[in-house]
């Protein structure tokens, strides 16, 4: 950017000023505005600053008391006047940029001076059209940022500040501003703050999720065990019930019903067996009884047979029977019957007669009659004896039959009893089993009840712990999120800080390099010095050829040169191409040094538009001569004091 012209209206003593500046071509880049002290040289400088940045930097005590507006103008217009500064510039592409600032001043009811806010206007050429810029402040800050104005618009007499104690800070600031790392700085501050806030937030979250998880896990394991237990018990229950069902089924199908039948059967059989036994016994007894009669007959069979034979022999020989047997007679007597059939009685002597007959025959003692008497018996006995075998065999047969039947019934009875006892046994066993199964089932049911209760408890516990876990996880989630946020900020912060450091370092080096270049270019005795440095702590240092620190021993002029070199380095590094406006560049320097500097200055500030506001003292003929060919325009400020204020004019020389 270069300034083409400046117009002041009512700016302090400059009621109406319009001056042109030299363009930095054809080697005539200097514009000189000369004024004696106190005239308002600095106010002109301030006017430019005010126009651009709405502030004045170098105000005298007096001027501070005065309003910005030219007091005379204000009075003349009866408290309604405006200050205006217009700067016409050209950008890099030679397009016109008009920057102007206006401010209204007026009297209030008490005749106090009041001012309206100043207004910045910018008009520039865009696409061959002159456009009023809608955000002039913003555009201006892009074109000529305020932060670096001091390296383009500066007071030459204050350059020494760079070498004072505070100088290091100023230099650091300069580097800082020039490197535009205020952005990074802000980023660093803001990221830091954000990071802190995340850390603070996280401090309140102390996730105990893991602990809860463990609780849940062990409770879950216990629950699982209980459930398995329950399953097992349920299986037992099912089995037990099945067993009971089976037994009931068995009982239903067999023993009890049969037991009844079997018992009946047993009773019946027992009766039958007894019957047979009775029959057998009776038969035996009968036989025995008969035996008593039969046995002797058979035992004496020989005798019987013998007697039978004798009788038969006698019969054969007709020795028997006798005529009448006494037996016959005895029988008659027994019957009390006569031979003729008449009843015997004592009355008629019939019985006695027969008795006498008997005696007669008894006396006969005839063997034959005796034999005849027994003949019948003997024959009967003999026949009976013959039949004995048959009789006995029949007896035996019957007996055996009965015994067989009895045996059969006995066997049946035994079987029945066996069955009964078996069924009794089985029944007892079934009953026993039933009882034990029932007891078992009772126990299992109890255990099942316990397990169910415990399971419900565990499930509730797990549920509540899971809820707690969810909360904790949310906390944890938040915690992790905050941590990640913190980490992002921390990492970015680290990088930003590193970048800041690097950039500052690089910029510092760059400035150092250029300062050194400029210094050795500008200084008239370069061989006296070896090096110019900006230390880590941002202090300028100059190394004497001897190697010693020379800063402290530099002359005023040398210091000025150093300062100018530094300024130049800075505005070179800044990347901005702006005019340099310097107020009293050669003020406190001795004559010779001034001459030296003046000699080198043009070359040094080559291709830059330079506006120098000089005092009479510093703009000596010598300086004038030295600068001469580079000066395009020369102006003078003349001030006229009036009652109400002053009016300064800038006249071309």
């Amino acid at each position, binding site marked *: 950017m270069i300034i083409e012209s400046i117009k002041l209206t009512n700016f302090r003593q400059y009621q109406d000023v319009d001056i042109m500046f030299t363009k930095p071509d054809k080697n005539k880049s200097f514009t000189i505005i000369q004024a004696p002290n106190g005239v308002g040289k600095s106010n002109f400088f301030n006017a430019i600053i005010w126009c651009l940045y709405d502030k004045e930097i170098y105000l005298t005590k007096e001027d501070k008391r005065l309003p910005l507006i030219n007091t005379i103008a204000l009075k003349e217009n009866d408290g309604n006047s405006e200050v205006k500064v217009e700067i016409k510039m050209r950008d890099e592409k030679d397009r016109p940029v008009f920057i102007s600032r206006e401010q209204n001043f007026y009297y209030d009811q008490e005749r106090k001076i009041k001012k309206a806010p100043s207004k910045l206007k910018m008009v520039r050429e865009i696409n061959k059209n002159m456009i009023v810029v809608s955000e002039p402040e913003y555009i201006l800050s892009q074109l000529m940022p305020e932060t670096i104005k001091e390296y383009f618009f500066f007071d030459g007499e204050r350059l020494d500040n760079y070498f004072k104690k505070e100088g290091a800070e100023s230099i650091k600031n300069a580097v800082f501003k020039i490197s535009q790392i205020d952005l990074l700085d802000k980023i660093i501050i803001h990221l830091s703050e954000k990071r802190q806030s995340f850390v603070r937030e996280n401090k309140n979250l102390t996730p105990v999720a893991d602990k809860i998880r463990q609780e849940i896990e062990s409770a879950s394991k216990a629950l699982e065990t209980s459930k398995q237990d329950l399953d097992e018990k349920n299986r037992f229950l099912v089995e037990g019930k099945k067993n009971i069902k089976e037994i009931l089924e068995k009982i239903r199908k067999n023993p009890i019903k049969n037991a009844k039948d079997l018992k009946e059967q047993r009773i019946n059989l027992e009766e039958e067996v007894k019957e047979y036994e009775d029959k057998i016994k009776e038969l035996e007894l009968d036989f025995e009884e008969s*035996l008593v009669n039969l046995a*002797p007959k058979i*035992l*004496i069979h020989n*005798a019987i047979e013998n007697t039978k034979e004798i009788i038969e022999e006698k019969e054969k020989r007709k020795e028997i029977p006798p005529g009448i047997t006494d037996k016959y007679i005895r029988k008659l007597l027994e019957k009390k019957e006569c031979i003729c059939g008449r009843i015997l009685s004592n009355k008629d002597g019939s019985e006695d007669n027969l008795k006498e007959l008997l005696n007669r025959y008894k006396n006969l003692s005839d063997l034959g009659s005796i034999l005849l*008497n027994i003949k019948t018996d003997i024959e009967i*006995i003999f026949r009976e004896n013959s039949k004995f*075998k048959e009789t*006995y065999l029949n007896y035996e047969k019957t007996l055996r039959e009965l015994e067989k039947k009895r045996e059969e019934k006995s066997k049946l009875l035994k079987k029945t009893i066996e069955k009964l006892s078996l069924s009794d046994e089985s029944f007892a066993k079934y009953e026993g089993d039933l009882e034990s199964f029932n007891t078992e089932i009772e126990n299992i049911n109890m255990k099942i009840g316990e397990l169910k209760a415990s399971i419900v408890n565990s499930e509730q516990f797990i549920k509540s712990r899971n809820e707690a876990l969810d909360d904790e996880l949310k906390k944890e989630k938040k915690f992790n999120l905050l941590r990640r946020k913190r980490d992002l900020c921390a990492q970015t912060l680290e990088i930003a800080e590193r970048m800041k450091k690097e950039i500052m370092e690089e910029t510092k080096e760059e400035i150092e390099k250029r300062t050194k270049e400029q210094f050795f270019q500008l200084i008239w005795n370069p061989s006296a010095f070896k090096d110019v440095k900006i230390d880590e702590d941002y202090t300028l240092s100059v190394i004497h050829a001897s190697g010693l620190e020379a800063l402290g021993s530099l002359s005023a002029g040398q210091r000025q040169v150093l300062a100018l070199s530094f300024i130049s380095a800075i505005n070179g590094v800044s990347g901005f191409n702006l005019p340099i406006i310097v107020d009293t560049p050669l003020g406190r320097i001795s004559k010779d040094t001034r001459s030296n500097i003046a000699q080198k200055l043009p070359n040094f500030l080559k291709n830059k538009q330079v506006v120098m506001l000089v005092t009479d003292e510093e703009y000596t003929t010598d300086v004038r001569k030295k600068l001469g060919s580079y000066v395009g325009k020369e102006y003078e400020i003349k001030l006229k004091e009036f009652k109400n204020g002053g009016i300064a004019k800038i006249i071309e020389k």
Partner: protein
Amino acid sequence: MKKRDRVFCDNLKDYKILKEETELFKRENTNSSIFIIAMALGFKEGKIHKTPLKKGKEGVVRLTYFKEEHLSMIKAVAIMDSGLDVLFDEDKVYSIAEEYANGGIKMLKRELIANKEPGSYIKKLCTELLDISRKIA
């Protein structure tokens, strides 16, 4: 001499015991039955078993209590023992019977009373009787 009206035995107690303590004579328990069977047993075993009566003999069965067949049997035994002529001596006939019965009683006692299985004698008896009856034509 007084005409005999009864048969005698050594000891009436024997008859009592047999009647009371044996199965065989539970029902048919007249002295006459016992006498006859004792006589028959004694006869069967042979003359060795004739045992004369002792001095203190006791009357056991009145002759009138014997059945006809019993008497016939007694005579048959006497005939076998001493020949046909014995029939003239009534007393002797009964003595023979008594002596056989005496022996027989002892046998009965032995078989039926002393520790024997009830029924085993009967079986023995039956076997013997069968034997005999088989030989009968």
